[in-house]
């Protein structure tokens, strides 16, 4: 292996990247756009659920209850309906996800019988949101009935017991606010880097076959490993710039707390970048057309990263077989590493297992990608 040849290829590739402003712009804008699209698009928090209310009672008590809904940060009062038909219209049209109907006679029942019902209508098309919304609504109503009970006891002059026998003091670590964006955004960073990294290198060899420059290249004494290292070097730098953009957005724009250290982040990011660049290169070597290579690289990185990296679906809830498959997804390790670095401030030694796995992955891919390149035309 001659450094001179690697440098020659790296310099040539760099000049070509710099002379192609359109591709360069795409390489730098793509991660920016994807961060915003995916960062906002993937949000598992259920907040500001559009709410429709129908108050058939229309007195102080019913208004009290409904005001609590309006005040909750989980619900936004979207519509005060005048009839049940109007409620149905709002839910059917999808304008409201949930509706509360306070029936006539609500207050009287509450006072006379000590128990009354309200109707909760939930749009179940999105079962996840529906479950969460119903639970939130239930807790709003529970808090209200607790107070009603308390007032009733006070009114009768009874002893007020303010002590709850057993109370849970819940303390959430690492993501104190239970903001889903805190663990989603590091996953988005991994996803964007996987897509962009493989895209960067997926064209590099295919382009030379299409333009006819590869025929001359393979007639020279250059070795497959020299070619690969030279080719990947400028994209590695470009990939690090892209990683910088993604990580800066995660901290600066999406306000994900960063508890780790920059050297740990740099080291692990470089490792993951090597893996995804090699995936793109491997595809480019195997498929000698630019369009085909770009498509395959996109599918090979986006699908496994989205579905199997633990970024959107928790791995421990997957079927056993699928869990085993996730070990083959490089992003799985990087997602684990990024979450740990961002939220826990994990160090290299604490991340030894995923880092080792990612290193092994990178080595295997470097060897495979270099060997896939054949210096013959047949």
């Amino acid at each position: 292996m001659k450094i001179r040849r690697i440098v020659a290829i790296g310099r040539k590739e760099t000049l070509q990247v710099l002379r192609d402003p359109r591709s360069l712009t795409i390489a730098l804008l793509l991660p920016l756009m994807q961060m915003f699209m995916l960062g906002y698009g993937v949000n598992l928090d259920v907040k500001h659920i559009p709410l429709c209310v129908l108050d058939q009672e229309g007195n102080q008590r019913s208004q009290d209850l409904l005001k609590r809904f309006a005040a909750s940060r989980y619900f936004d009062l979207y519509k005060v309906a005048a009839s049940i038909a109007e409620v149905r219209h709002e839910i059917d049209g999808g304008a409201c996800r949930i509706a509360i109907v306070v029936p006539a006679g609500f207050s009287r029942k509450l006072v006379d019988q000590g128990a009354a019902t309200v109707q909760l209508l939930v749009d179940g098309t999105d079962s996840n949101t529906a479950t969460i919304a119903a639970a939130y609504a239930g807790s709003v109503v529970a808090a209200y009935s607790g107070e009603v009970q308390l007032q009733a006891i006070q009114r009768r002059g009874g002893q007020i017991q303010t002590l709850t026998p057993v109370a849970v003091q819940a303390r959430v670590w690492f993501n104190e606010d239970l903001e889903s964006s805190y663990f989603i955004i590091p996953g988005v960073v991994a996803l964007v880097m996987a897509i962009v990294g493989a895209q960067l290198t997926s064209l590099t060899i295919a382009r030379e076959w299409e333009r006819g420059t590869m025929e001359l290249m393979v007639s020279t004494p250059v070795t497959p490993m020299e070619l690969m290292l030279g080719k990947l070097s400028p994209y590695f730098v470009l990939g690090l710039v892209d990683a910088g953009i993604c990580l800066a957005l995660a901290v600066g724009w999406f306000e994900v707390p960063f508890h780790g250290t920059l050297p740990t982040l740099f080291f692990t990011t470089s490792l993951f970048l090597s893996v995804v660049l090699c995936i793109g290169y491997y595809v480019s070597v195997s498929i000698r057309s630019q369009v085909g290579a770009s498509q395959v690289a996109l599918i090979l990185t986006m699908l496994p990263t989205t579905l199997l990296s633990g970024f959107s679906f928790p791995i421990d809830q997957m079927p056993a077989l699928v869990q085993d498959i996730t070990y083959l997804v490089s992003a799985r390790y990087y997602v684990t590493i990024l979450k740990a670095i961002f939220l826990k401030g994990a160090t290299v030694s604490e991340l030894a297992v995923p880092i080792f796995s990612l290193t092994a992955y990178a080595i295997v891919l470097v060897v495979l990608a270099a060997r896939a390149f054949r210096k013959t035309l047949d």
Partner: protein
Amino acid sequence: MMAAQSAPAIVVDKLGKRFGTFSALDAVSFDVRRGEIMGFLGPNGAGKSTLIRVLCGLLRPSSGRAVVSGIDITQDPEAVRKRIGYMSQKFSLYSDLSVVENLRFFGGIYGVCPGAINERIRFAVDMAGLQGRETSLVSTLAGGWKQRLALGCAILHKPDVLFLDEPTSGVDPSSRRRFWTLIHELSAGGVSVLVSTHYMDEAEYCMRIAMMAAGRLVALGTPRELRQQSIGGELLELECANIGAAMDLVAKIPGVHDVAVFGDALHLLVDDGAETARAACALLAEHGLPGASARQIAPSMEDMFVHLVRTARAQGAAAGT
């Protein structure tokens, strides 16, 4: 060193290359001496490019053996690659790089040491006549300039052997002449050149010519030797009015094997020149085409080529049945 100089630069022995059932090269054998310019002529699909690609190590031979610069191409293709320069049929430099950037890249790839690279680049620029265009992007160069730059890139590492696959296709005549002058300069410096072309006139620039048809070597010799070789009879040039009508008439004369149009005359391949000349003129006069004149001429390279290709096709057809 003396032994190395006297040894042939290329030895090809019964080299064959098959693509599936198609035989692109069929038991081709020849030698190229050091400093020799060997031209390969043949129609498209004759196997010229395949031969060059096999010798450059781009394709693996299916049978036979080839030694380039003393090294067996199947045993150590990488060592062969260090000693050869290659110009592919399709222009394959980087259009988005400048002249010097391309040269520097190939210098690096061929492993020219950093101390010598600038001197070699200057040599290549001077040789190719690219002074003043060093920083121009290759995409802005005209065809002839690109061709000379490609040659410059191929000789940076002082190769023993140059393989040029139709290097002058699509280049204007004066650029072609200039290109051939460069090749002769390189040859004088001891570089062996194997060049393919389908321009007949370029064959005259070569020291020896190999004619290929249907994957086989059908003739090999100096341009003079080839022209003197039998083309299967004598050649008559017939000048007359209405050559279209005349062509049909003379083709029926016994002893005429072939008739072809050459400019405003007909070339006839015949057994006996003097006899057929008289018969043809008489026949034409009989059919209202008087004033025809026929004379015996020496066959040109093109006549030779047409004859060889036709013979090879006939043999191939005979072998096929």
